[in-house]
């Protein structure tokens, strides 16, 4: 991403695309955005749902869920038809422009409106404003939670390239880029696979097909799991199938902070420290600063810092030489971070540090260099051509719009029985399924509610506050109805992270399916490139019906 203190000063227009910045990441760049807006920058938000940040926007585009690629292609076509593209930039820095243009040409404003539901005049206005101003695009995960999410992201990046809005102060297109800078800074190779340890490469299990893959893995079969810093059941698609798979394990260990779905199925629950009791590193998705997490209380009761658990396990398995006794979390951080890392400053309550410029330039791509096989922005992704030779999948190298799997357009048959598409936002008051046990959080959230459009509610005789049953062939969830225009007609919203044991979980309704171009079969893999093969899970490809419970 571009340094917040740079873009917020220079940009004239920001598009927040599929990014609920105020609900899921308010600590990251919202203040900078407000500063830019108070300076006069315009804000465009692309999101089917009315979020807080959408309510602050000059223009809020509400495409039908999963039609973002069509919207971006429609904008590109309109820009090119008016001659507002940046020819010089396209010639110097992009590869495959003609192919992109051929694809974009299919997206007249009328067709864009037809597919996305966004009025043609609004598409045109935003496209023109974007092209003619020094503009930023800040991408979230929203448009990527579908089987066509990679195409949406590719089309959005292509929009930035066609307008030349990259590599200048206030002009950039960010999609979760911090990884690169952060990975450069951390010497994780040294810690994960220390010299002489000779750790063999193991199979990989695709996160989207977890339940299935746990059973399909045969050589050798998976008999035990230690589950740590993540949720295996509550947050996975088709959570019921995951439960089936978990029941077949010989041994499941959960390292967790409180009892919930996952611990219900565990043979052993080890109490985990909170972040206040152990050392850690805090980077960000959206700015270039990083802080060290300093323990402020001792580990409570029988809990222990995660690193102590793994080191002790390593010692007991006979690998003591790699896990020195009395090594603290801080000692491990010193192994991970470069010797010249300013520890003192990074630990200070007021002192986050900027990632060093060699890992993370304040203006990415300022030098016109792009880390691709052709060294250019690949509007035709040659890396996809290479992947296509090795793996099955749908490796279309140029951005295009394909209706997503479980949606009205992608599966009309299913949509007749289950006509409502259900999106699950991240809860704004918790971290996924964590902290749901806290009465203080419940006080703010109230009981779990699902958003339902007034038209859909009226058609089913549902009123605000009614207890409703949301169901499909996979499962049923019970919550209260919130009848609101925040969602589009034929669309519902139920926050992720509600526990299955409390009845309002959304994930049990979701099909196990991967997003992204690669077909990973049953999900047991030898190799995986997350940037090319997938990167996300189609949590929002979910059709349901609802009734009064």
């Amino acid at each position, binding site marked *: 991403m571009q340094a917040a203190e740079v873009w917020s000063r220079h940009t004239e227009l920001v598009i927040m695309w599929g990014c609920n910045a105020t609900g899921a990441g308010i600590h990251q760049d919202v203040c900078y955005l*407000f500063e830019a807006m*108070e*300076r006069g920058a315009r804000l465009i938000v692309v999101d089917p749902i009315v979020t807080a940040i959408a*309510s602050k926007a000059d223009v809020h585009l509400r495409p039908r869920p999963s039609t973002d690629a069509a919207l971006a292609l429609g904008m590109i076509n309109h820009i090119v038809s008016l001659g507002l593209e940046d020819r010089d930039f396209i010639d110097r820095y992009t590869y495959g422009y003609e192919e992109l243009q051929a694809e974009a040409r299919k997206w007249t404003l009328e067709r864009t409106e037809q597919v996305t539901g966004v009025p043609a005049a609004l598409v045109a206005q935003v496209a023109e404003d974007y092209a003619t101003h020094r503009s930023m695009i800040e991408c979230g995960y929203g448009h990527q939670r579908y089987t066509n999410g990679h195409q949406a992201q590719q089309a959005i990046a292509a929009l930035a390239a066609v307008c030349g809005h990259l590599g200048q102060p206030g002009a950039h297109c960010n999609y979760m880029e911090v990884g690169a800078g952060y990975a450069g800074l951390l010497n994780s190779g040294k810690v994960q696979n220390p010299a002489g340890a000779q750790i063999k490469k193991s199979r990989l299990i695709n996160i989207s097909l977890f339940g299935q893959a746990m059973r399909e893995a045969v050589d050798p079969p998976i008999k035990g799991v230690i589950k740590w810093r993540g949720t295996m059941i509550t947050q996975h698609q088709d959570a019921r199938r995951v439960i089936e798979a978990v029941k077949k394990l010989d041994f499941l260990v959960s390292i967790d902070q409180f009892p919930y779905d996952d611990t219900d199925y565990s043979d052993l629950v080890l109490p985990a420290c909170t972040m206040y009791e152990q050392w850690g590193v805090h980077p960000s998705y959206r700015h270039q600063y990083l802080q060290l997490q300093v323990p402020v209380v001792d580990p409570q009761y029988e809990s222990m810092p995660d690193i102590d658990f793994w080191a002790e396990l390593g010692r007991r398995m006979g690998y003591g030489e790699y896990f020195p006794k009395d090594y603290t979390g801080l000692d491990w951080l010193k192994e991970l971070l470069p010797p010249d890392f300013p520890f003192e400053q990074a630990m200070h309550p007021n002192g986050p540090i900027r990632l060093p410029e060699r890992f993370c330039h304040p203006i990415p791509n300022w030098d016109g260099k792009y880390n691709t096989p052709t060294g250019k922005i690949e509007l035709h992704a040659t890396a996809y051509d290479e992947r296509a030779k090795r793996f099955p999948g749908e490796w279309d190298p140029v951005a295009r719009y394909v209706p997503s799997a479980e949606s009205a357009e992608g599966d009309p048959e299913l949509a007749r029985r289950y006509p409502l598409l259900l999106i699950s936002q991240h809860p704004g*008051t918790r971290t996924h399924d964590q902290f749901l046990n806290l009465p203080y959080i419940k*006080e703010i959230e109230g009981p779990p509610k699902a958003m339902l459009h007034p038209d859909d509610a009226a058609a089913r005789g549902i009123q605000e506050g009614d207890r409703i049953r949301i169901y499909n062939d996979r499962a049923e969830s019970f919550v209260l109805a919130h009848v609101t*225009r*925040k969602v589009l007609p034929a669309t519902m919203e139920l926050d992720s992270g509600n526990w299955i044991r409390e009845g309002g979980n959304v994930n049990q309704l979701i099909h196990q399916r991967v997003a992204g171009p690669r077909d990973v079969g049953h999900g047991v893999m030898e190799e995986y490139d997350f940037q090319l093969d997938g990167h996300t899970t189609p949590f929002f490809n979910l059709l349901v019906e609802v009734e009064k419970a």
Partner: protein
Amino acid sequence: MSRESVRPETMLLVDQSRCVGCHACETACKMENDVPPGPRWIEVVEHETLDTAGNVVLTFLPLNCRHCGDAPCIRACPTLALTRGELGLVNLAVERCIGCGECLFACPFGAPQFGEDRIMQKCHGCLERRSQGLPTACEQLCPTQALKSGTPRELSHHARGARAAAVASRQG
């Protein structure tokens, strides 16, 4: 009826253009004052409206005690539990409160809260923190800087400065 009209010396400015309804201020207040679930000395209220173009828009309003300059609650309280205190803040003497609720009925903001003991409690304006020159707890934790405490003069100065900057950037 004794009308009381001391100008408060400290106020909390709520910038609704910045508030995004994250409820961090509520959490900050609970931590600072050790308030259990139930009474909410500050509560952020979300409101859904249609703008003139027919778009759905959310607004958020953090509501705490405004420490009114001419406070209806002070006039309403039959036991004189509510008085004007230091820094112009509206002070509650818990030991005098009989929990009759008159202040709640009089308050235009629904600020007075009642806990399990049914005795009134409310925002005290972080008197101690303010006397030490610190921001209020909610102000300190607000991630969008939507809250700002200060004297009416300071807050006016702040709001006018922001306004002038916005006008200048539009002209520039």
